């Protein structure tokens, strides 16, 4: 059972590392350009000759 004290300590430390990592990631603007990739993927699959007929609308 003693192993649980170690496990709790390790878990708390692990959780703290992830929390710090997450806060750092947000502050460091890791998640900032979140517009272009999801929108770009919508536009790329029409066959070449039908490109003009593409009426895909994105609001």
């Amino acid at each position: 059972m003693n192993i649980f004290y170690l496990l709790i300590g390790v878990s708390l430390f692990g959780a703290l590392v992830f929390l710090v990592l997450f806060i750092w990631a947000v502050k460091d603007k890791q998640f900032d350009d979140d517009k272009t990739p999801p929108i770009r993927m919508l536009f790329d699959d029409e066959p070449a000759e039908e490109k003009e007929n593409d009426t895909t609308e994105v609001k």
Partner: protein
Amino acid sequence: MEDQKVIYDNKTVKLFILATLVWGIVGVLVGIVIALQLRFPAFNFGLEFTTFGRVRPVHTNAIIFAFVGNAIFAGVYYSMQRLLKTRMFSDLLSKFHFWGWQLIIVLAAVTLLLGFTTSKEYAELEWPIDILIALVWVAFGVNMIGTTVIRRVQHIYAAIWWYIATFVGVAILHIVNSFELPISLFKSYSLYAGAQDAVVQWWYGHNAVAFFLTTPFLGLMYYYLPKAAERPIYSYKLSIIHFWSLIFLYMWAGPHHLLYQALPDWTQALGVTFSVMLIAPSWGGMINGLLTLRGAWDKVRDKAELKFLVVAVTAYGMSTFEGPMMSIKFVNQLTHFTDWTIAHVHIAGMAWNGGIVFGMLYWMVPKLFRTKLYSEKLANAHFWIATLGILIYAIPLYWSAITQWLMLREYTPEGFLAYPNFLETLTQILPMYTFRIIGGTMFLIGFFLMVFNLAKTMKAGSMVAQEEAYAPVLVELGARDPKKESMHRFLERRSVRFSVIAFIVLAIGGAVEIIPMTFVKSNVPTIEAVKPYTPLELAGRDLYVSEGCYNCHSQMVRPFRWETDRYGEYSKIGEFVYDHPFQWGSRRTGPDLARAGVIGGPMYKNAAWHYNHFMDPQKMNEQSIMPKYPWLAEKNIDLDIIPAKIRAMKKLGVPYPEGFDKIAVDDLKKQAAVIVADLKASGITADPGKQIIAMIAYMHKLGRDISTPAASDSANAPAKVVVESLPNTPADLTAGKEIFGKLCASCHGPEGKGLATFPNLTDDEWIHGNTPTDVVNTITNGYPVKGMLPFKNQLTEQQIKQVASFTLNGLKK
């Protein structure tokens, strides 16, 4: 800048789509066959190749690797080329991938039906096929990562992160779980033993769910849902966070398949903790999927593909909430070994995986064939019939699980199990199995509608096998400018580095659990009394594996009173150190067998009973749904391979004496002769060289080493109770009759006229006497070695007197 011409490979996509449709129908059809087998044992067809134990792995493998596998590849090959604006890296690899995968599927179906299996769930295939899988999988990975390298867009879209994680994850899992020592072309022993084997297997098993049924499907969701809804994914931020946290956390969750079982507490605790944490990233995916439809819900009304995708994502949310709940130890008492798990996986499999596949196909096939879907109405019909089918399948099984669990743990006011005969708890839930057949059939009907609809669509349109498109050349951005680009953004345009980091994140969880289990000795305390299997027992064990007995019988008594009363002493880690592979099982359609060899224990049956039961289970228990195994008495034990098996086990660390392999066959024959003599005493003539003898030997090995010797000689026999007279009122006789029907009829027949070698109670011949004292003592203490069970732990003194009274006075002479 001049655009470059790109030629998309549509042919491979089409091949994968066709394979998805064919194997999907096969997989569901086989599922309906095994559902019928569980309801009506006649559907085992009396052939060794078609028993439930062999067909069930065909169903699971066909659905996971053939249907879902081909669908993943179709979706990946279509979306990757378009997302990266390039053809797949290598046509040769694409071809090898497709045909190699189909070959694996055919080999799997054939070998599983022939009884070649490792018995590790969803990894049953034997070592030559394992090697082939590894080769094809690596071809897929090289093809995919190669494609990311030759791409024409700067950043790799989120869907492809999931594809990469799928490749890396499955590669790690498959290789680590498949370490086995070959004995012949079709037989190998797992390198791990007992609890270690269990930890590795369920780390694999759970992450087969994660990296074959979840991550590729999240990838498909990230592509096909925005495409079908014509809306960008709700939050790209969320996709970054939930990607990394999901792939990291999943790899730790495996031990939740082994709660309360013979596993160190710390492993179980880790499994539970990480399973509960998994709600967060899983729901990240669900939220991202559902919120993508903000402002587009009107489209769901009109398009069947969106209906399927919505139900899929919703089912994903439900299953990923249910899963963590099932991983909580207390809840797991109920859900493990019952139909709850079956219902859970079918909600996930049919609604989440099925839904994404159906939605994807309804969207992709018309696109690929440059036409409209043949019939939107038919697709809607498919949607409703499939969705209702899923509910009709799953809800009765949840009901069945609760019913069976409540019955198994029900005690009488006197403190005995209320339903000591396991079969009672099974016959109670059989009506639910009828609903399962109906639900599955509805799902299949829907599937046929889709195949018809898509075939018509394909016929109406025309696919360009080599589709032309134009895309600008990729200008390499080079090193990262910390001011302009975040690290993750940078990583999104460095696919090889991305794959390596994904590998590291994925490897941590498994390493933390598996390495200490394998190398720290204190995790597996040994038990002095546990001896290696004799050659005959080993031959029997290999037959047990080959027949797929583990599909219905567990060998794992959990430490609950209602399990130890029913089966015997709870299971301990040290019992399994010679088990390559482990046979703990995951669903009890039949009773646990871990204590089948404990003489005097509640699960013990003598050789004659086993013989008759293998030959015809319904003769022993009319309502039993176990298939008959008459070929066990016809087929010979393969003696030629015995020395090789002993040598292999010795190599794996089983302490057989030096040179034992040379005398192993003699040892086997000696032990077989003893069993044959035992059968002879019960009036059965058996050939010592037949497989049934080995099976009986194995049954009698189970749990024997850790049990204390039973009171078989008169010196240790419990004192006789003297009974003057038996209760004789009509009420007593009625009570006695009821008990007789429940407990005695399975051996002595419903009318007491005896079954097979079990004595007739209505004639004048009484082996142990027919005075009240004799009969009461026979029932109380039994004659375990002869096959008469003791009932003192199942019945009160009063009940024993009642059933004795019924036996003497109530049975028709």
